[in-house]
């Protein structure tokens, strides 16, 4: 059980996700999708229940877990006053990545030299999203948690995001995606959870087994 203030935002979430799976989390607004992702990231405390992510206990080892998580939330987590390149280089240093990895990630998401020198506050929403995705490639976390990752992206951007998700999944990265906008990614290890009223009410994995 997870509370946001006094509000019980997540009250019944039982799931077992395997490495390399791509999990679509669907549900109406306020269902608890974002809360579920933030819980898996180790950013929210669990009031009751048990949970393990990458063998880290969600009650006692949240700090240790976080370094292995890549979270793309509603907000991009970038510094608006810094340029794209400065943002990426700062976070790359924090993640222990080098300039070559930064250049590769920028190239993958079409963040060319001209965009690299633009302050983030002057970017479009889609360009900010691409910059955030570039940070996922730079960090190389074991789990990607994507909250409405397609918001603001054009068709080209969506294709790039899908392509990066599939590549990551093939390399063994587990991806959880909360989104209204898609029904399918195209991964062979795809699965859909439906969340409503703070509970997981449907799981395609269990449905198919049943």
């Amino acid at each position, binding site marked *: 059980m997870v509370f946001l203030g006094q509000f019980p935002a997540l009250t019944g979430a039982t799931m077992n996700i395997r490495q390399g799976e791509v999990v679509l989390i669907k549900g109406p607004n306020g269902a608890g999708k974002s809360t579920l992702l933030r819980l898996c990231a180790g*950013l929210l*405390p669990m009031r009751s229940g048990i949970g393990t992510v990458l063998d880290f206990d969600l009650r006692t080892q949240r700090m240790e877990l976080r*370094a292995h998580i890549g*979270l793309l939330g509603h*907000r*991009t987590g970038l*510094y608006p*006053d810094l340029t794209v390149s400065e943002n990426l280089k*700062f*976070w790359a240093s924090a993640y222990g990545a080098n300039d070559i990895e930064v250049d590769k990630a920028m190239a993958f998401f079409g963040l060319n030299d001209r965009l690299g020198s633009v302050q983030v506050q002057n970017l479009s929403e889609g360009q900010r999203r691409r910059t955030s995705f570039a940070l996922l490639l730079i960090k190389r976390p074991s789990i990607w948690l994507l909250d409405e990752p397609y918001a603001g992206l054009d068709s080209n951007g969506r294709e790039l995001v899908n392509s990066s998700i599939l590549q990551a999944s093939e390399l063994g990265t587990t991806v959880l995606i909360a989104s209204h906008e898609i029904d399918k990614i195209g991964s062979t290890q795809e699965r859909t959870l439906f969340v409503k009223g703070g509970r997981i009410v449907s799981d395609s994995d269990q449905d198919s087994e049943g």
Partner: protein
Amino acid sequence: MFRDAWLVTKKDLLIELRSRILINQIAPYTLLILVLFGFALDADTETLRDTGPGLFWVSTLLVAILAIQRSVDVETSDSAIDRLMLSGISPTSIYVGKTIGLYLQLIVLEALLFTVMVVLFDMSVVDYPLVIVSAVVTTLAISSSGTLYGVIASGLGVRETLLPVLFLPVLAPAVIGATRAFGDAFGRVNADGWAWLGLLSVIAIVYTLVGMLTYGNIIEDT
């Protein structure tokens, strides 16, 4: 720890360099405060010289509130704090890095404020080492407690109004000590400024240690 802390400091200073909020907005505000104090206390230079040390530290505290709010805003406006927490950088390193960044910005503002005060109020310093050391130590007390209280006020969602209410009483002992030390350094009060500096040092060390130990728990709850 220090590598990560320095990374955070460099990032904060780079953000300041890009946004120029310190130079274009906070610094003019600092000077305005001092000039207004001058008008309020009339053109009696003896009164201004006597009250100068106190005015300096009150002005510093007022601008420190703006700098602290800005320092917190940098991390919270687009949820960069979440990314920091997921980066593997320890909360202690984040705290130390942000404290050093705030410290360096406040030192620049204080140097500006000091220069204007000495010229405007026609003051002369009799003990420069005491001025420098007490400014260095008091600024550490302000920046270490400010970094901590900025996050506390931010978590309560009413940062603009709550920060001064929480922060100013905590800094009251430091302001008293710093004013006494500066008064002695300017030859305006009959006090042992170096003894007050001892008190300031204890305050700065305690605030910094408390910040290092508690910052992690506080950002968890915000």
